[in-house]
């Protein structure tokens, strides 16, 4: 019996229904193990995994779309808590999803280990004895010959060896086997899958992902306190951060200008930077989408960009109380951008500002502003001003990109006596109530950089390549056995019999047997003539 395959594998012998002995404790363990490692279980788990992956594509995931989750929860107040409890917002990290793939991999390991052992044995073993009745096997064919049995078989063995079969002569027959690579490939494929899982699970823990928004002309240092957001792996230590500095010199977008169907569509983003490793000199570099910058074993990606209007706030006597570029978040393809400025100190009252920046402003008949081109052609900044307690002094952290206006008083804007303040570049306006003035000095651009360090990804790639290699070998290399046998009858006439046996899918088996018979006949014919 072939113990190497699960008992319900198509190549395994049919189960004996009657033999059902009493099972003890070990017997039950063995029974469950066999169930887990059976083909049917593997198939069931594979299909279950496919089904279990679906909900995560229907509902936004915290890992890839955190804002989507917040919005989904707000829109579906009844079902969201249930989904939350089931872990649907973190489907791919949930207990049930992990349980399925872990069981699948345990089943896989339970299947692969005995097969690997058997395969090692098979690699050293001799081809099996020639079956007594070849006519029962695939592609059975016969040829008459005048050569004697021993010579004929020796010649058949030579042909088979030339075709890279391993051969063994048993009496007046030769047994040949080839295609061990098929099983090798199959095992490599499955082991490489385990390799991918293990490297992702363990290797991923040593990496980190950080985001940082940098305005043109500014730089950032690769240290924990400098990130806007930071996700370390499980085994990450602060000392893993290679201390380098990236200074963003210039961000240059290119927008389509001629093709009317794509007017304003971005066709290139280029970020010119200089990088400095500790103790090194500054190196120029370029970061583009699809072309990250590698510095100190870390990859830096360009993931977003926008405008960071440089707003200067002065008190009534002209002293600067606020002056810095503030990244405004793009709201649409034409970069209508929303931003928040908080000025807690220096003026008679705390002021909060929410504003829209329009790189190419147009005003419709109702006075509604919008941007119709992403580049700076007709820049306009529109600001609503609030006074009141900004809530920055109570020690609680607040979102820099949001202003809670509930307890604030609007002094310029739609519901205030003074309409929203509007400024072009270089323009200056007075803040109502004599609080001071606001100037739009310039509008530099910002880039949003992702810094990734994942020491395991080279290994993941290696295993992925092995997955493909193993798959191709296991699917397209036929594993087959061929036999040639010389039968001498009472009169001394020799009949040669040929047949084959496939293990797994082997569409070319019949042709291979026929080819062997043909080649052999030719060779014997020649040797008789000579």
């Amino acid at each position, binding site marked *: 019996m072939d113990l190497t395959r699960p008992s319900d*594998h198509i190549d395994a012998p049919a189960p004996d229904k009657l033999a059902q002995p009493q099972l003890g404790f070990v017997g039950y363990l063995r029974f469950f193990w066999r169930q887990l490692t059976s083909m*049917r279980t593997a198939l069931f788990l594979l299909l279950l995994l496919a089904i279990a992956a679906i909900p995560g594509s229907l509902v*936004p995931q915290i890992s890839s779309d955190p804002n989507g989750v917040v919005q989904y929860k707000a829109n579906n107040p009844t079902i969201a808590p249930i989904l939350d409890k089931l872990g649907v917002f973190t489907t791919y990290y949930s207990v049930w999803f992990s349980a399925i793939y872990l069981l699948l991999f345990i089943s896989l390991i339970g299947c692969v280990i005995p097969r690997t052992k058997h395969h090692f044995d098979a690699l050293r073993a001799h081809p099996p004895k020639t079956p007594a009745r070849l006519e029962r096997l695939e592609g059975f064919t016969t040829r008459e010959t005048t050569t004697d049995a021993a010579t004929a078989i020796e010649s058949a063995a030579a042909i088979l060896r030339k075709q890279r079969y391993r051969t063994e002569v048993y009496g007046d027959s030769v047994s040949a086997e080839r295609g061990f690579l098929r099983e090798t490939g199959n095992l490599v494929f499955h082991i490489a899958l385990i390799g991918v899982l293990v490297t992702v699970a363990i290797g991923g823990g040593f990496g980190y992902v950080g985001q940082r928004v940098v305005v043109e002309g500014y730089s950032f240092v690769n240290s924990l306190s400098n990130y806007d957001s930071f996700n370390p792996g499980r085994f990450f230590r602060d000392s893993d951060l290679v201390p380098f500095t990236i200074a963003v010199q210039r961000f240059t977008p290119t927008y389509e200008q001629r093709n009317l169907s794509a007017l304003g569509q971005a066709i290139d983003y280029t970020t010119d930077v200089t990088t400095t490793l500790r103790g090194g000199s500054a190196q120029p570099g370029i970061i583009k*989408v699809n072309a990250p910058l590698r510095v100190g074993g870390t990859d830096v990606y360009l993931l977003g960009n926008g405008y960071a209007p440089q707003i200067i706030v002065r008190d009534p006597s002209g002293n600067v109380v606020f002056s810095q570029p503030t990244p405004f978040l793009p709201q649409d393809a034409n970069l209508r951008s929303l931003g928040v400025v908080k000025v807690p100190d220096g003026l008679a009252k705390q002021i909060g500002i929410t504003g829209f920046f329009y790189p190419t402003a147009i005003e419709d008949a109702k006075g509604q502003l919008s941007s119709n081109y992403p580049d700076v052609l007709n820049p306009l900044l529109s600001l609503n001003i609030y006074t009141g307690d900004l809530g920055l002094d109570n020690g609680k952290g607040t979102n820099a990109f949001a202003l809670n206006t509930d307890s604030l008083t609007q002094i310029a804007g739609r519901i205030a006596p003074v309409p929203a303040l509007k400024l072009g570049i270089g323009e200056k306006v007075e803040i109502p109530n004599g609080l001071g003035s606001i100037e739009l000095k310039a509008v530099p651009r910002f880039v949003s950089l992702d810094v990734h360090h994942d020491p395991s*990804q080279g290994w993941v790639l290696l295993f992925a390549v092995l997955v493909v290699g193993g798959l191709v070998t296991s699917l397209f290399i036929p594993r087959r056995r061929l036999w040639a046998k010389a039968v001498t009858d009472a009169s001394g006439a020799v009949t040669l019999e040929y047949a084959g046996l496939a293990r797994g899918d082997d569409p070319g088996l019949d042709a291979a047997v026929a080819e062997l018979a043909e080649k052999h006949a030719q060779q014997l014919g020649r040797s008789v003539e000579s």
Partner: protein
Amino acid sequence: MTATLVSFSNIAVYSAMAIYTLAFIMFTLDLARRSAPAPVRLDVERNAASASSGSTKLLERLTTDAPADPAKKTPRYLRIAMSLTVIAWVLHVSADVMRGLAAGRVPWANMFEFSLTATAIIVGVFLAVQFWQDLRFLGVFVTGFVLIALGIATVNFYVDVVPLPPALQSAWLVIHVFVASLGTGFFALGAALSVVQLLQARREAGKAARLNFLDTLPAADRLENLAYRVIVVGFVLWTFTLIAGAVWAERAWGRYWGWDTKEVWTFIIWTIFAGYIHARATRGWRGPRSAVLALVGFGAVLFNFTIVNLFFKGLHTYSGL
């Protein structure tokens, strides 16, 4: 220049669709002919056995129809259908090439272009496979499917030629998307074979008594083997697509796998077809069950291309719609 090429390309697409329609009709007529009064394969034997009493004329007609005899001339409808398919495909490919020239890049950067290319590849795979096996009986399925896909693409997905956004400017666009389309072509053919296999299995079980044309087609287990061989090629290509996509994602988005909706569905499809391949090796799962899995898998491929592209939120938002 661009406008001229685009209009030529569009004319070529519509012409190809017209000729595919004719080919579809011819393939259908061929199936109808196969359903002709006497079930062929059975009757050849029966008539041969009673040759002395049977009419010579009838015998001749039946032997010409029998697919088992490749030396005989191909039936006329089938010949015309195949010629029309080749002509339509040449137009189809030239439409695709002109579209690419007009855009100055590979013609698969939005849903319209992807549909155009993927359908051309499906027909290309169908035509190429004929050199290996006579699968012309799948012509109805293939031309019908491609016609519907092209119809939807031209009416609902059409967009003008636009430049590539920065995220798509990569050599991986050429490799990843092309191999995905090639895989889709093999899965489509596998699905077609599985449909015929299911019908054939029903007929062999004595259920589909009225589908006489099935008698001229290969037996269910042979169809299953053919489907399997076509699908494993698709599976290898799909595995490559998945890995190439991960490598590209690492370049473009800074992570090789992030459970983006499109990644999830590509993974689901991979898992279903992995299940299909295991089903073939599991006792009790050969036959109709594995055929159903192949169809579910292809259904997921179509779902991934249409519903996921249009209605699911994710990073693969390149439909251009």
